[in-house]
């Protein structure tokens, strides 16, 4: 095992950091966030130029075919800068789902577009009332002629209003909470019957509520085996979860840097407040939490490709549970250590805090993944 960056990885990390330092400071981010899409198209094109959008795409389809460790490096850097662009949905989850389960036609028609930045994907899988259960699906896909007709609702689809392609889970058989009987469909977000209502998220990103009313799709829109979409979906989401753990780590590290600087410079009672032991111990607790978050982000990156599915699921559940818990804790403490200033929208602190909470709430919070882990112990 080797935790230090290889030469190529160091170059990757440096080039991302340089770009973010130059073009993505906190004020720039604020201006990107209020654009209609919730991010900046020019940044998306930069990501394409760097090749980063193809990091999860096989070389045969024009991608860089990177490792989970590479994704870790990218997402950690994005977490540090609170990057808004829908990298997770398109380049991590979308690319890996289609790359692993798509037909040759699907790969050829979609993956090159991901790499060049011309196609964006959103995962429309969770539903109102289903909380974090990907198997709790009421959306139906009924056979009509050679194709399917899809009806249902999808909830909190991350960046759903800026994606042109949706990956939709729908029931082709089974009861509403069965894992079997789910199928995945590729749906054009401009197709007739697809209603997309976008909303701002509390962390400055965007999500959408999506209605599907008699949406007609061809047989070729099915990704993977019919009725066996759950495993494909779960495996792509696991990649997303590992990536989120890395993003959370980056956000926590940056937040701690801001907080340490504040404790060194803010004076009360005639001295920097960081000299007070009560605050020092809070800082130590935060650093301990970040160390846990760092370990599990690495654990997730290491195990996301584990051939033993039980081992893989346990590791990812453990990582997301721990990362979520630590992220919230670190955010709360950072606000507290900033005193009144921590409550101000003007500072970046609160924005990191909000993003960390949203990461926790994405695709299963700490309680959800603890439950998953606990069930896997039996």
């Amino acid at each position, binding site marked *: 095992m080797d935790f230090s960056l290889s030469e190529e990885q160091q170059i990757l990390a440096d080039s991302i950091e340089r770009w973010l330092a130059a073009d993505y400071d906190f004020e720039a981010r604020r201006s990107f966030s209020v654009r209609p899409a919730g991010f900046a198209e020019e940044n998306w094109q930069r990501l394409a130029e760097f090749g980063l959008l193809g990091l999860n795409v096989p070389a045969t389809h024009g991608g860089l075919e990177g490792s989970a460790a590479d994704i870790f490096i990218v997402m950690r850097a994005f977490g540090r800068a609170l990057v808004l662009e829908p990298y997770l949905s398109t380049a991590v989850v979308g690319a890996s789902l289609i790359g692993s389960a798509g037909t040759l036609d699907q790969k050829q028609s979609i993956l090159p577009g991901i790499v060049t930045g011309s196609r964006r994907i959103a995962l429309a899988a969770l539903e109102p009332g289903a909380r974090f259960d990907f198997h709790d699906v009421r959306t139906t896909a009924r056979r009509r002629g050679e194709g399917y007709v899809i009806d249902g609702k999808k909830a909190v689809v991350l960046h759903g209003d800026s994606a042109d392609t949706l990956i939709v889970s729908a029931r082709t058989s089974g009861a509403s909470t069965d894992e079997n009987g789910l199928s995945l469909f590729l749906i054009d977000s401009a197709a007739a019957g697809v209603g997309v209502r976008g909303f701002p998220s509390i962390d400055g990103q965007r999500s959408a509520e999506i209605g599907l009313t008699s949406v007609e799709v061809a047989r070729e829109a099915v990704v993977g085996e019919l009725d066996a979409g759950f495993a494909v979906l779960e495996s792509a989401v696991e990649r997303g979860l590992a990536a989120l753990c890395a993003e959370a780590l980056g956000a926590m590290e940056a937040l701690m840097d801001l907080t340490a600087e504040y404790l060194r410079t803010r004076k009360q009672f005639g001295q*920097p407040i960081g000299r007070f032991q009560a605050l*020092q111990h809070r800082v130590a*607790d935060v650093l*301990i939490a970040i160390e846990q978050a760092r*370990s599990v982000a690495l654990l997730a990156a290491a195990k996301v490709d584990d051939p033993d599915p039980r081992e893989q699921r346990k590791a990812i559940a*453990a990582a997301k549970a721990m990362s979520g818990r630590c992220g919230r804790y670190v955010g709360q403490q950072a606000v507290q250590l900033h005193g009144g200033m921590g409550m101000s929208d003007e500072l970046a602190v609160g924005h990191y805090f909000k993003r960390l909470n949203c990461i926790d709430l994405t695709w299963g919070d700490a309680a959800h993944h603890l439950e998953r882990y606990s069930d896997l112990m039996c």
Partner: protein
Amino acid sequence: MDLRESTQDREFREQVRVFVEGALPGDIRGRVLDFKRLEREDYVRWQRILYEQGWGAPGWPSDHGGTGWNALQRVVFEEECFRAGAPRQMPFGLSMLGPVLIAFGSPAQRQRFLPGILTMDEWWCQGYSEPGAGSDLAALSTRAQRQADTYVINGQKMWTSFAHWADWIFCLVRTRSEGKPQDGISFLLVDMRTPGVSVKPIRTLDQGSDICQVFFDDVVVPAKNLVGQENQGWAIAKYLLGHERTNMAGVGMCKRLLSRLEHFARSERKRGKPLMEDIRFRDRLAKLEIDLLSHEWSLLRLTSLERSGNAIGPEASILKIRGSEIQQELAALLMECAGPYAIPYVAQALEPGYTGETAGGDHLNALAAQYFDLRKVSIYGGTSEVQKNIIAKSHLGF
């Protein structure tokens, strides 16, 4: 960054596992896994077995009789020993004095003392804390007065683990009262059989007495037993603290506790079903397993950094704190497995050869004692609060 276990690492683990499982005497293993007390001879017997295998000193360089293993190999070795139910290798000679003699000792001292540490022919203990010097170690007042080619020691050491079994003690003593307290401390080796040395065991919460008070009453020690220079003791103490700090992580012990906990969660029942099937209990166990998993990966990462030549700083304090907390939480849950049978306690049942009765059965008798005893881990070797001072100050630069 390559996050896969290498073939070499896997083979090494396998090699250690096969040897340890085969060589560990069954009676020792049984007592260790049942949280019973070991006798002095048990520790010596196991150390001898490792010594014969060439693994007596995992942390020493090979030209001093060590294995020359890298940091990761040492972690794997320790974990495998704990896993199998081996007694821990006593750290006082192997991890503390040995490295100090290798770094600061004279050739004569190394030649005289290192072999006895390796074979455990000589049992060492550590004379650091005093009644008035705990976290503030530099406040120590045990005096060593130079007289011709001897030192004469007067004073008292406290919380000295296994002093009642020790042949030798290495001590921090005050050799100068003027100036900064840190600048008047020396590092001395004392034969426990020297006239004037007396030992009084301290009874602890579990009714054990592994820790002692050690009294020095005009104890005469040859000056050749001084390690390093006179008044250089603080630098040596700091070196010792910095040496192999990752071994404070306690991952081996955590894993052993977890494995015992899983055992009891299956054997003990609630409302007719194993505790493991009680979701409320299992969720707590799950949280601890996750805590331990992340702690283990911290150790792996830091060990790997150490191996590639990076100095480990305050991260070692993080390992110490987390290792302590996890051990203590595991022990608490372990005690809860016994339910009301954590109340009755027959301390003698932990001793070898006990044939009498216990209330809830022998297997449950030791669980509460283990919980109470492990409260020590967040106190010894620098309390969690002192560790937090170190972490915060190093990060904030104060």
